């Protein structure tokens, strides 16, 4: 099985020693993200993001199906993040590795279980018809911090996506084509984002947005998810060295400004794209949406 190239001992000690002096190898401040670049495809819900060298593509798609019998009033929302050998040769198809399991679990907790998406709004006819929304996350290039990048990409895609409009008349349901009726935005309750803190040196040094090299030498990571109002959705610490409770409290305070900055960047990108799409200035008239 191919393996990812590991850092040499010299590289390890170089990075660690630099970190002890609060220096990162790419000269970033410890609390700064790399440059975030958000691009939208022509289709709704198609988002490509680049966070430094990490590149992630998200594609949202939806179809009409029958809801789960035990959840008659809910639509279906599936997040799929299968890694491919494209990002790193160590990722094998059909054999999920630890990173992949971790990423899907975190996204599940951060976005699905924190009810970012109102799945009830995907219901068309209770018990018989609903939308099944599927998010495919493709990791194209892996240079660390996949969790934050995937979370940003997915939240952007959810805000960008439009589902086809439907009319219900008794038992018959008409799904209107995108050209026939202006498609409808998803109903999102809040916009959680993940911030991963990588800690070193018994928790004395802490970094956000670690690169792959920095991830390889860290003692452990703590993933904090919150929305821009500072509401905490989840905290995860999978293994690694122990950290004391004060650090966790401290880091959750540090996460808020990060989340707010990222939210601003996402919003700016979305507004920019909306302006491009609204070429004739007719969007306001076409849309039947109400301001929430």
């Amino acid at each position, binding site marked *: *099985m*191919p*393996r990812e190239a590991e850092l040499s001992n010299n590289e390890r000690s170089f990075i660690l020693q630099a970190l002890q002096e609060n220096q990162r190898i790419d000269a970033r401040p410890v609390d700064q993200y790399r440059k975030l670049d958000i691009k939208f*495809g*022509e*289709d709704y819900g*198609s988002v*490509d993001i680049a966070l430094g*060298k990490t*590149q992630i*593509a998200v*594609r*949202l*798609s939806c179809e009409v199906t029958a809801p789960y019998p035990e959840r008659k009033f809910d639509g279906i929302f599936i997040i*799929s993040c*299968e890694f*491919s*050998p*494209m*990002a*790193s*040769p160590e990722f094998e*198809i059909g054999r999920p590795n630890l990173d992949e399991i971790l990423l899907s679990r975190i996204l599940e907790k951060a976005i699905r279980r924190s009810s970012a998406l109102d799945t009830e709004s995907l219901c068309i006819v209770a018990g018989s018809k609903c939308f099944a929304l*599927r998010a*495919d996350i*493709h990791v*194209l*290039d*892996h*240079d660390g911090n996949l969790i934050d990048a995937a979370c940003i990409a997915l939240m952007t895609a959810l805000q960008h996506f439009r589902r086809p409009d439907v009319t219900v008349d008794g038992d018959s349901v008409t799904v209107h084509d995108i050209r026939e009726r202006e498609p409808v935005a998803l109903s999102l309750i809040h916009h959680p984002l993940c911030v991963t803190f990588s800690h070193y040196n018994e928790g004395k040094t802490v970094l956000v947005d670690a690169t792959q090299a920095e991830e390889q030498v860290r003692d452990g990571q703590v993933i904090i998810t919150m929305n821009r109002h500072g509401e905490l959705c989840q905290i995860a610490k999978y293994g690694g060295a122990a950290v004391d409770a004060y650090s966790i409290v401290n880091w959750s305070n540090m996460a808020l400004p990060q989340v707010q900055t990222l939210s601003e960047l996402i919003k700016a990108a979305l507004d920019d794209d909306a302006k491009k799409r609204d070429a004739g200035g007719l969007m306001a008239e076409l849309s039947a949406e109400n301001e929430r």
Partner: protein
Amino acid sequence: MTTTILHPLSSPDGSATHTAHGHTITAAVNGPLEVPRRDELPEEATVELHIRPATGISTIRERSLELLLEPTIRRLIRTETYPRTLIQLTLQILRSESSSTNTLTQVPALLGAAMLALLDGGVALRTTVVPALAVTARGQGAVLVDDVTEYEGEWDGTHVFGITGEGKVILAKSEGSFGVEEWKDACAVAVQGIMEGEEEDSDEEMYGDGDGGKQETGREWLMGVMAEKESS
């Protein structure tokens, strides 16, 4: 529109993003790598090809495309120069225009992306291959199409060819209704279009914008992409 970006990704050895016939594909090649024991071949490299759809899990459709392209690509690579190693190719479909539902129209885009990634990755190759898509209508001649999504006209048969540097056909796959003569015509048109460019009196579309004068042939297009890489 045929567009190409070489080396869009930093971690794989070679990568390319290629758009053709309404399909956008990102290809990445890694190799030579350590090969799992069970796949190891004593005298040549193992070639692995994965095709991943933009949405949903990979199905029998992707498997059939893999089965079509994998032997073609394996024959291109000088596998004997990398014994007991693995050359891993991943083709990620990023976008498919809804108007191009035909599976076969994906093949030229996939093959083009794979070829460019292999060249970008510096994998030893026997020859290069340029994909071509030709359409035939019953009772009419074959036409080489640059972009099937912009092609105006009805057709009955779709033909995909992979043309090597020597002008030989390494891959041929067809769909629809057509006769032997029509197929031969399509094949000849594809070879000619890739190797020599179009004839003066025909209205076939070729790679590139072709603003007046003789249009770029498929081979010149591949050369152009690689020359740009050289100079950068």
